[in-house]
């Protein structure tokens, strides 16, 4: 579904990714793990077109997309939910959903978002910036549900959220997986990510240090080497 081949990227003169190869097979869930500063978010930003790749190529299905703009990639079915609260703060919840679906079939989108997150239903007219952190994240994640993307890239969905809310968010992720979407998940709760994932990539200092299945990843040495002694 998504294939990165030898991707290099960085900010100004600092190169962050030194030739990364990564594949997200159709319908599979891939967890991208690594320490802070390993380049996980940068990789997602490159895939979505927010940051240009300085080398290598990015493929989406059969098409090479590294020259396309972000909105063109989105229209082809790639959906990045960036870190932080990816919502339009000055707009209302309803207007946010309208932006997510590009102004078409807004009522349908609202219905589907409310079905997934009933809490949003009471707040359609509220300015999104005044929602609680959890509600804001639900609104952000709703985009992956209402736009039927082929691939969802999710960056640290659980940051700063209460465990109960994280549960709800990950229910939505599970629903996406059940609906056959391809997923690429960056997550600080390693176990949660491993529970959803079919494959695991570990990024270490801008290079892929480990590729394998979650079970292999749980092996002690991999954990110790790259992720600290979380287990």
């Amino acid at each position, binding site marked *: 579904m998504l294939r990165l081949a030898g991707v290099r990227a960085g900010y*100004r003169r600092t190169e962050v990714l030194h030739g990364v190869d990564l594949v997200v097979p159709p319908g599979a869930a891939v967890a991208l793990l690594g320490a802070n500063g390993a380049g996980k978010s940068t990789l997602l930003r490159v895939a*979505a077109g927010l940051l240009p790749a300085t080398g290598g190529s990015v493929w989406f299905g059969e098409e090479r997309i590294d020259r396309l703009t972000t*909105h063109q990639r989105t229209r082809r079915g790639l959906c990045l939910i960036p870190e932080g609260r990816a919502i339009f703060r000055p707009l209302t919840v309803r207007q946010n959903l*309208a932006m997510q679906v590009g102004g078409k079939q807004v009522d349908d989108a609202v219905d589907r978002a409310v079905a997934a997150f009933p809490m949003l239903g009471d707040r359609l007219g509220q300015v999104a910036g005044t929602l609680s952190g959890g509600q804001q994240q639900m609104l952000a994640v709703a985009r992956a549900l209402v736009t039927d993307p082929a691939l969802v890239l999710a960056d640290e969905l659980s940051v700063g959220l209460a465990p109960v809310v994280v549960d709800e968010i990950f229910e939505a992720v599970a629903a996406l997986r059940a609906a056959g979407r391809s997923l690429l998940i960056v997550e600080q709760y390693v176990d949660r990510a491993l529970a959803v994932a079919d494959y695991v990539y570990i990024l270490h200092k801008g290079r892929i240090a480990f590729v394998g299945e979650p079970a292999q990843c749980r092996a002690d040495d991999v954990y110790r080497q790259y992720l600290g002694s979380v287990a």
Partner: protein
Amino acid sequence: MRALVPFVIVGITTGAVYALASMGLVLTYTTSGVFNFAHGAIGMFATFVFYQLRVAADWPTWLAVAVAVLVVAPAMGVVVDRVLLTRLQGASPATYVVVSLGLLVALQSAAVAIFGGETRQVAAIFPTRGFEVSGVRVGYDQTIVVAIAVVAGLALAAFFRRTHLGLATRAVVGDRDLTELVGTDARAVTTFSWVLGSAFAALSGVLFAPVVGLDAVLLTLLVLQAFGAAVVGRLRSLPLTNLGAYGIAIVAAISTKYVATNRALIGLPSAMPFIALFLVLVVSPKGSFAAVSGEGSGRAGGGSGGGGGGRGGRRTTLPMRTLVPVVAGAAVLPAVLNGSQLLVASTAVAFVAIFASLSLLVGLSRQLSLCHAVFVVFGATTLSHLLSAGVPYVAALLLSALVLVPVGALVAIPTIRLSGLFLALGTFAFGALAQNLLYNNSFAFGRDAQVNLARPSLFAGDTAFYYFILAVVTVAVLGVELVRITRLGRILAAIGDSPAAVQSIGVSPTASRVMVFCLAAFVAGIGGGLLGSLIGSVSTLSFDFFQSLIWLTVLVTAGAATLGGSVLAALLLIAVPSVFTSPTVVQWQPVAFGVAAIVFAQSPNGIAGYLRRPDFPELARRSAWRTDRRRATERRAGAILASDGRV
């Protein structure tokens, strides 16, 4: 009461034009985050095209209007957005202000250079016949202008409320990256908003031209008066902006009735928009003018803070390596210059003080002062009055500059707590206000619109006074450089980067900012006094407030961060034009400054930043290497010769 009705009608007509202009301004600001100081200039330029098509090319009026409003202005909007602004993504608000000021200066000067500076009469667009409402005559043209403004306002409101594109324009300014992520072409949306805003600017210009005539300066500034209305609307709300436009225009029109009998208030009506602008900024509670820009750009690229970022390495010593050669060079100049050249050199030296004071604000603490000419003018007029009162020269010079310290505080205190853009707007309003209201007063120019200044009796000769200026300016510049390397300088630089961080270490950003404003006013006042004495007289026309804008563009071009930049700015502004004296060059020179300011807006230190001091040790090493190599070659050649070619 009845007597006021005609004034109210005039006010409503003017208000309609203000409303159109200010709605365009608010539109581009809310959708692109750029407060377009050149909004009026775009309207003015399109109006000139309209005039040329209608008069010179003899097109039908409706077609000329349509082309100017629907083709020329939108095209300018596209150029501004795609050429000037794209490369500025994520830059600081101050950078955007500099760019749009550069555009203003460039467009206005270009219009004067192309079309000439004189005011042209523009024939009415709509029938001027009229009808009577309870004894007061109302023109059809007035009615139509108001109708156009109302319809345009309603259409704009509907666009924002009802259409998806309207929603998208609001989304883009909130978060550009996210707009792209949800599949909307953010660039196209921004460009569209520039197209729309520019069309509004052109429409207001075309409708206003028959009333005030077609004049590059006048029309640019008249639309600038829309700033007042836009600020009443907090730069966001279209209904409030409309209310502000009509309110300001009606009050201004009514005030013409009363000021006719009072000389001192003669400038009041035309100053009304700026009074409104200044008052709203002053009385607004903190936080009501949070800038829309920057909110969305913060996320991108890990905060690539454009102009605010690297301001060169921070120095800890005085820049003696610049100062000593420059002063030494300046000291020998009188020996090689003739009389008129010496006068130019004196002017340039005095301007170094003015630019140094401006660089304290612009370069060090990223505060834009658009009223620097006021400081210079008041420095000169106050000096003149003190000298007439018999105060000795040096004491008078210092006193006149001291008088400007509270003036600097007066400008800075109310607006400084707002963000960078609003400080620029506040100083801009103060500049216009001072020129319209204060220059005529007896403490400034008085009735003659001119004051005379003597030189100190010991330094009355041209050469002697040159050295006097050089000495005073050297001291002033040393003072400015001292500020740069002391704690205050570091704090100011830190404020430019992050006011919150400065607060967190227990320093009040406001106090430091006000202090530097006062100091800048002081030094600029000294520069003004010296300039006045040099020329012998200063008139209301010597330093109009447009000069403040040109100075800013020149300083940004030359380099606002170092002493070298200030010296270079003075040379660019004063010395270069005296070398190239052909009228064409003189006319196009401000255009070049405007364009250059746009180009250099993002460079931390303008041209000066690109000039490298020759690295003498390195040069010596290289030449020594060459010498060594030459000697080695000679030795080898000698050996070959000595061996008779048998190697």
